[in-house]
């Protein structure tokens, strides 16, 4: 299958390892990955902040980059960006009265998947250890991000994949379904409330004794990781694509204190 990667702006600029890991996983399954170079961002920040007019060129750019590219399905390692492509792009096009853009956006949205959705539903991955060679001998806790959980209805696809990673010690996160408090510009406009939500999320992550908190959205992980870092915690964050891509031969690079739970030290 020919799979177009939508890296998302935050992964492209801040977490290239997540995009590289996504490519690795797909190639390991025998698929071709293409990167439509015109891509930039889904525009969610603009839409969610009320700047619909400013979102129009961003959305138009994404649609142009993806509806001309040659691929079967598109994938992004981010539930919230995929939700934006699927739910917000047609709405933005409607808001500026562009029916042609709306139709194209709807078509692109229908072909766009979140990573775990693509792996489980389309590519038939049921055992990451066996099918991808995923090996990650660390104590990990998992935060399901709101947009993946509530807009895309990812269900337990992400945690199911994580559970099948060899060597992983997956600890349940208390109050996992609670928002981490990121919310895009909410974290700046309502910084106090966002911080209070983050505090509770960080405390729950710490309570699991995990070395790492993982999830499917780089932005939420940046938020949670940024809070843990500020509090001087040794727990860090890592995108689930990087855990799935990690193998015995090519282990994911992990920063922070390493508390290997299976007795096999990685480094």
């Amino acid at each position, binding site marked *: 299958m020919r799979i177009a990667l939508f890296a998302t702006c935050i992964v*492209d600029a801040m977490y290239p390892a997540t995009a590289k890991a996504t490519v690795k996983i797909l190639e390991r399954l025998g698929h071709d990955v293409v990167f439509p170079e015109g*891509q930039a961002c889904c525009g969610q920040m603009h839409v969610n902040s009320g700047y619909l*007019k400013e979102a129009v060129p961003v959305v138009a750019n994404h649609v142009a980059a993806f509806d001309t590219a040659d691929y079967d399905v598109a994938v992004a390692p981010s539930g919230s960006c995929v939700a934006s492509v699927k739910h917000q792009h047609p709405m933005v096009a409607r808001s500026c009265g562009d029916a042609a853009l709306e139709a194209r956006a709807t078509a692109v949205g229908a072909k766009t998947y979140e990573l775990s959705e693509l792996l489980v539903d389309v590519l038939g991955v049921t055992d990451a250890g066996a099918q991808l060679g995923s090996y990650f001998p660390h104590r990990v806790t998992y935060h399901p991000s709101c947009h993946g959980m509530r807009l895309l209805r990812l269900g337990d696809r992400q945690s199911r994949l994580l559970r099948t990673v060899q060597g992983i010690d997956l600890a349940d996160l208390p109050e996992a379904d609670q928002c981490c408090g990121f919310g895009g510009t909410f974290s700046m406009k*309502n910084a106090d409330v966002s911080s209070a939500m983050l*505090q509770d999320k960080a405390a729950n992550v710490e309570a699991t004794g995990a070395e790492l908190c993982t999830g499917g959205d780089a932005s939420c992980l940046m938020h949670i990781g940024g809070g843990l870092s*500020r509090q001087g915690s040794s727990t860090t964050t890592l995108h689930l694509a990087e855990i799935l891509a990690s193998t015995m031969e090519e282990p994911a690079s992990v920063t922070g204190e390493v508390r290997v739970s299976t007795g096999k030290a990685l480094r």
Partner: protein
Amino acid sequence: MTTFLGMPALPAFGSGNLFAGESFPKAAHRELGNAQLRANLGHATHTIRDKRQAVVSELPDWEQLRDAGSAIKESVMARLPELLEEFEKNFTARGGVIHWARDAREANEIVAGLVRATGETEVVKVKSMATQEIGLNEYLEEQGIEAFETDLAELIVQLDHDKPSHILVPAIHKNRTEIRDIFLREMPGADPALTNDPPVLAMAAREHLRRKFLTAKVAVSGANFALADSGTLAVVESEGNGRMCLTLPETLITVMGIEKLLPTWQDLEVFMQLLPRSSTGERMNPYTSLWTGVTEGDGPQNVHLVLLDNGRSAALADEMGRSALHCIRCSACMNVCPVYERTGGHAYGSTYPGPIGAILSPLLTGIQAEENSSLPYASSLCGACYDACPVKINIPDILVHLRSVDVDSKRGTKKVPSQMDVGMKAASWALSSGKHLGLVEKGLPLGRLAAGRDKKIKKLPGIAGGWTQSRDIPAPPAQSFRDWWAKEHKSPAPSRDEKETQ
């Protein structure tokens, strides 16, 4: 606009206690400083949330019920004028009197006039959001009429000269020791040996209220539903105080928002399943009172209904926002909202707090009402409210819609654009082309420089400083993915056709 909903030309927006006195971030900052409040709220919302989840999970047809509730409400909004006329005809035919109020001031004047006509100076009240909304108690007090709240939580809040913090559990922000202290201080004749044991506190309130019920000649109520086909009103409650108010006094004055209408008696079935489960986490509430006009020799002989607009027609005119009027005031959205859970209701500055308040208040008052325009931003858009809403109000989408109304209403009105305006414009340029983003990413090494040796950025200027208030930013990578990809794939990937022929 000449005539709308059978009323003369309307002021577009509502008035009264719908307005925030300060912006949400400012009020939230203050409320967040109250550790006791946060602990009380966290405990209470979690308890109700769990109870609700349990009773909702019991119903195999919960989603269909939500769809039915949503569909009925949508049809009500689509033919509200006609249903109101039908209701008025039936209510009047059974001996009730209808009064139309376009805003808070008119509604208050009507109620005060009706009370004055009875010659009484005291009224008992069953909890009513509509009368909170119009500030009826305060208005009556100015007119020399004392209003006694009879709902236990509402009584606590009233005795403490406080405001409700939750629409279902108005005293959610107070614990039992605080309540005992309020009773000792404010309740006439309270036993000095009062303990903080909930049954003891409830009995003290009961004794106090019983005296009021048996002497009051006038009651003021709200209504959860009004049935157009029979002219019937309904109040749903837990304590029985409502039934006392609805049956004992000679005069009953109900104040109800025009959106509370349901077409038929049968439609009530759907809502009697949705409401108790969503609000108190019970399969059925203890008391449901329905009354249709006047019955000679039984119950109140003078029955009035004030039908309140107060911005509802304005909300109805907002195509994207009008479904906020589907709200049945169950508070499920509040109990699952992470923002509400931490700030409490007072931070919203309106009778309607929480996620529904964040859309309803600006819809009723207009986004131009300055402090209320901060309400649609009081959400991380996590979507928990939409999942919990028994009538499927898409609160996150309406929040986003109202944000865009706010941004658009301010375009070109400011002498100096805000940092957000400037930032969003710049980001729109950077993010609307792969080339632009690639150019911006050439600056990543600068970010690495700023991060320093510990690879963390700890302080950003301007509004971005909100982020670094409690979070670090990791040092950016040396190379963006885009650059890495370009170097890895110098020759373009073979196209599908080439590949297939290989």
